[in-house]
């Protein structure tokens, strides 16, 4: 078993309590995740009894959320799961997360369990597409302080952070989201959008159809401070806690077949590092 490179709280261990929100069967908490399992799509976050698939949410509607977790420690854990929502964003900060609710979770050694329902009435003004973030913590395996909310590097977190759109062949799609600096000092980041070509087991619940490729030259990123859009990559410097609105535009290939799907992922990297610190997915169903 390997601890994440950071953000694992530093308290859990296999002889005590070792919590994981699993992204795949036998996910023992090693982070970063294998490439087949994008950290922005976790099937352990359930909405209405099944993994949240990015479906549109209607303000005023009450839904039931639940979170699945496992304890790879030797001792039974009394844990608590917390669910947050956020506007579409590649990374979460204290300012960007909105508390939804909590649920207790008893986890025996090597046992997987799911919380009881966490009832949530979707507030007015909530966008159709949001990010759901789940956290699991226990006194014997607490999250790192201050909270990182970083599903990419911390087994205590998971996110379901996918925007699902429909488009016709040849259509230009546009979506907006935020990137943010969750750290405590001014930091340089770069954002890169790529397509996913592989058939991802972890995306089956949101990606039942075959994926088509999209050329990177057809993906553009734009921020309010940039007069011109950048081709699929963006460098920014963000102050502590600062967030920045980004517009992603992409051209659906004219020869894309209706029924196919385009999957893009926007990954946020810290300058000179090669592991993303955040990201989100965009799924475009071609109609």
């Amino acid at each position: 078993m390997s601890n994440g490179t950071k953000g694992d709280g530093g308290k859990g261990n296999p002889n005590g309590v070792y919590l994981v929100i699993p992204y795949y069967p036998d996910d023992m908490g090693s982070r970063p995740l294998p490439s087949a399992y994008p950290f922005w799509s976790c099937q352990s976050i359930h909405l209405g009894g099944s993994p949240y698939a990015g479906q549109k949410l209607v303000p005023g509607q009450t839904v039931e959320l639940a979170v699945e977790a496992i304890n790879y420690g030797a001792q039974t854990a009394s844990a608590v799961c917390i669910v947050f929502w956020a506007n579409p964003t590649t990374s979460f900060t204290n300012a960007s997360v909105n508390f939804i609710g909590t649920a207790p979770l008893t986890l025996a050694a090597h046992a997987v369990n799911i919380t009881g329902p966490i009832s949530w009435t979707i507030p007015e003004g909530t966008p159709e597409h949001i990010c759901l973030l789940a956290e699991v913590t226990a006194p014997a395996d607490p999250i790192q302080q201050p909270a990182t909310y970083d599903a990419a590097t911390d087994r205590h977190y998971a996110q379901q952070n996918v925007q699902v759109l429909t488009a016709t062949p040849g259509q230009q799609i546009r979506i907006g989201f935020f990137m943010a600096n969750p750290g405590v000092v001014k930091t340089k980041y770069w954002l890169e959008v790529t397509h996913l070509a592989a058939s991802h087991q972890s995306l089956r619940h949101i990606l039942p159809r075959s994926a088509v490729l999209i050329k990177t030259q057809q993906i553009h990123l734009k921020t309010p401070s940039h007069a011109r859009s950048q081709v699929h990559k963006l460098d920014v410097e963000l102050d502590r806690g600062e967030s920045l609105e980004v517009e992603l535009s992409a051209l659906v290939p004219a020869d894309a077949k209706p029924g196919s799907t385009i999957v893009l992922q926007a990954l946020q990297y810290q300058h000179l590092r090669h592991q993303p610190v955040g990201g989100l997915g965009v799924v475009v169903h071609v109609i």
Partner: protein
Amino acid sequence: MIDYFAHVSALHVSHGAIANSPLASQKPVSEALSAVSAQPGSAILGALVDHLLQYAQAPTSVEIGLLKKTATVFAEARTMLNKLAAVRLSLETSMAAPTAPGALAAYNAAASELPAIATDFQNLTAKFQTLQAGFPNNWLAPVGQQLNQPVAEWAWRDVFLGRRTTAFVAKTQELATTTRGKAFAFGAFAGAAGNLIGSAYLNSVVGGPRRSHTLRHRLSAYSVGAWLRDHEPQYAGTLADIRSALLFGQSGTPALPSDLKALLQAALQQSYPSGTPALPNLETGYTHLLEHLGLLGDFSLPAAPAPPNNTVAGNIVTQGLTLGSNSLLLQNVASNTTSFGQNTPLIGSHESAAGVCEQILVWLAIPIFSWIYSIDVALGGGQGATGSPDLSSTGDLVTLSQSPTGLSGINSLYSLALNAWQALAAARTVLVLRGLLYPDNDDLNNPTFTQFLSIPSDTKNYPLLAMPSSDDGTSYPTSGLETPPTSSSPFAFGAKPQIFLNGSANASVLALSSTMWEDMNLYPGSDRPWSGNHDLDADRGAGALCWALAPGASITSLPVNITNLAYSAI
């Protein structure tokens, strides 16, 4: 030595097997089968004679005293957790709606209980410390044969399992004249059948016999029992069901029914006429048996502490606090090397159950004082760390409910509840790992227990020698081979526990019961396969005969030269 669930399951399986065999048409057999249906408690008691004898003697019933003492402290801890839950609920409800009618009074009433709870925690800590001081690391009585002792010095548990049990089966059948007696006799037969086949399974997953791997054997027996409890519940039901059947409808102080006591005593005296220790007090065995079955159910965990209500939890999280973790608490224990989950490994450790719990509870008492103190300070109170805060106005409560101090205090109490719950869970786990309690359903996913739930790939090296006394029994032995080697069981790699009950066409209670009943009861001492003096520990393999050391041989000198015992030999 199979456990309660395996014994009662074997009774059901053997009853069904014989009822569906040609043997059922014979009068003694049909009478026995009917008697079991009419008097199931007697049959279960007959199946559990090995356990009754174990608990009839002090050296082999140490666990009852340990469980009794620990259960008392567990009960107090549960009560304290329930009290804390009620106080938390009241505080959190008040702080979620501080201007609601009665909120201030409810808050003050709840807060006034905190000092008493803090005292309770401290008292409980002292009790755990006392318990820890008297908690033996190795509580299982060694097996006389492994100590090179003569039979006359063995515990009756070991005499019964290692000598003439088949003769005892035949004798109870011969002596039983009433329906209750016949049910008891059938139970005694089924108990022997279960041990004969079940012990072979246990020996395979353990890597050696009970005499040289006592704790590992107990762990395996309880793991298999828990598996049967969860996967074959139609046979044995629950421990409460078994206990209830053994009460024979008695309330108050139950006594071993005199007719069954007489039958058991006569069968033991006639089966073991000489060469053994004096018969133990069977009443004591029966009383302890019931007590043990009751105690095993006294270690349930309360429901996990609920998080604060959404309003308060949301405010706590918005403050940047980690829900359920108390930074003040963590600072206080940062230098404490015994803090839970960091330096207290359970598997592979030799910490006592009480020790683990005590280590946790010592520092659990901290946040209550800190919380009271911090609220006092925040509101300008002067009652000190042991006084209860008493808010004088709704405005104070409104302020407190939004303040980092108040929210931190609520979070501390939640953390306290979580830690206390986890302390109990950890202590329970240690009791399971020490072989004192059955694993829970969830525990059976743990590799420590799953290893006992299927036959391992390598059973060729059997029997493995005893491990050093420091070994905790949770790992397959790394010791050398006790020569001469033999085969532990006929079961194939991967076979699950039900293999010895009904999963094998030629080596299960289901497959062999008819033959066994006939051989033991109708042809005792003959040369038929199950008419001999068979060893219920299956020490030298499934169906092997009881054995004694050859003249001049020692259990610790390899090869261990043995002599198989004749039917009449003790």
